[in-house]
């Protein structure tokens, strides 16, 4: 379950950025996770519950934005969104393409901070 490692990094990154901006309590953390990142959302939420105890993220809401896969179609000369991740071909014209423009994201996008400490 590599989601536990990922959750630990999320808590570390969130805590570090909170501290760099005057500390306080993190009330929400927003992640952007690509469909190709091989992250299971429920496992990540479970891991987050475990690792956030006694950190500035102890009461933070975990928001996960799922990013679909976008590829460049050389025939259409345009970016296209794939409906799934089992066929890397243009959904419009069918041309195979491995030129991935989005969908591998594994990012902390933002955190929301309040100054009052958790009670």
């Amino acid at each position, binding site marked *: 379950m590599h989601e536990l490692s*990922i959750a630990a990094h999320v808590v570390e*990154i969130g805590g570090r950025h909170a501290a760099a*901006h005057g500390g306080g309590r993190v009330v929400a953390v927003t992640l952007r996770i690509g469909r190709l990142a091989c992250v299971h959302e429920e496992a990540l939420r479970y891991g987050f519950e475990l690792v956030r105890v006694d950190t500035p993220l102890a009461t933070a809401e975990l928001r996960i934005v799922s990013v679909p896969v976008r590829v460049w179609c050389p025939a259409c000369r345009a970016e296209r969104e794939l409906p799934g*991740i089992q066929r890397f071909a243009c959904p419009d014209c069918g041309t195979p393409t*491995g030129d991935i423009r989005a969908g591998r994201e*594994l990012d*902390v*996008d933002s955190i929301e901070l*309040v100054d009052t400490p958790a009670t």
Partner: protein
Amino acid sequence: MTPTDATRPQLPRILEVRTRILKQNDETARALRARFESLGLLVVNMVSSPGTGKTALLQETLARFMARGVPVAAVVGDLETDNDARRLATSGAPVQQIMTHGLCHLEADMVQARLAGWDLARLHYLFIENVGNLVCPTSWDLGESVRLALLSVTEGEDKPLKYPGLFNTADIAAFTKIDLASACDFDRDAARAHVEAVRPGMPILETSVKTGAGIDAWLDYLADRRRALGSASA
């Protein structure tokens, strides 16, 4: 009536963080890759389910290179035992074991730590056998130049569709235990089509350590990739 500061509900401050969660690993891996490639060292990350035959292919690969006098080495990840490292050491090549104690994948700093005592400049190839797992190793760059995804004919031809994330990050695929293909009713055309669907254009090898099938093609592929390192830096 306006609320006083004390009673006004506090609005959260939004901080744009925009940081890759695995940034630390990515940076370590990038530094490793730059070092490996500047030394003309081709590093291969081998990924598959447990039991696909990573160790068997690696054992054969090390033995063939050692027989030609080509300097090779291996780093092997496993959850608990060092059986694989002992098995691979019979080739005479230097082998280091990483015991992850339950961790389902290798990370770049584990590889870096294992390489501390090695003279990388004299090596031509370094193989990293990842922990047997088709999901978790996907997101961890180890600084490799080649990622090999293995699929044994006993696992069924639809594995690439079930695990597209991993196959999509690979540079080359190998169908292992190909000598068992007919016994398992392995449909190699379907398997090839599935790999092509999730990773268009990826080269595919069909290998058998038992019969020797595909091993020369594998070694040739590695030699080509190593030559390409030299020309890229020249």
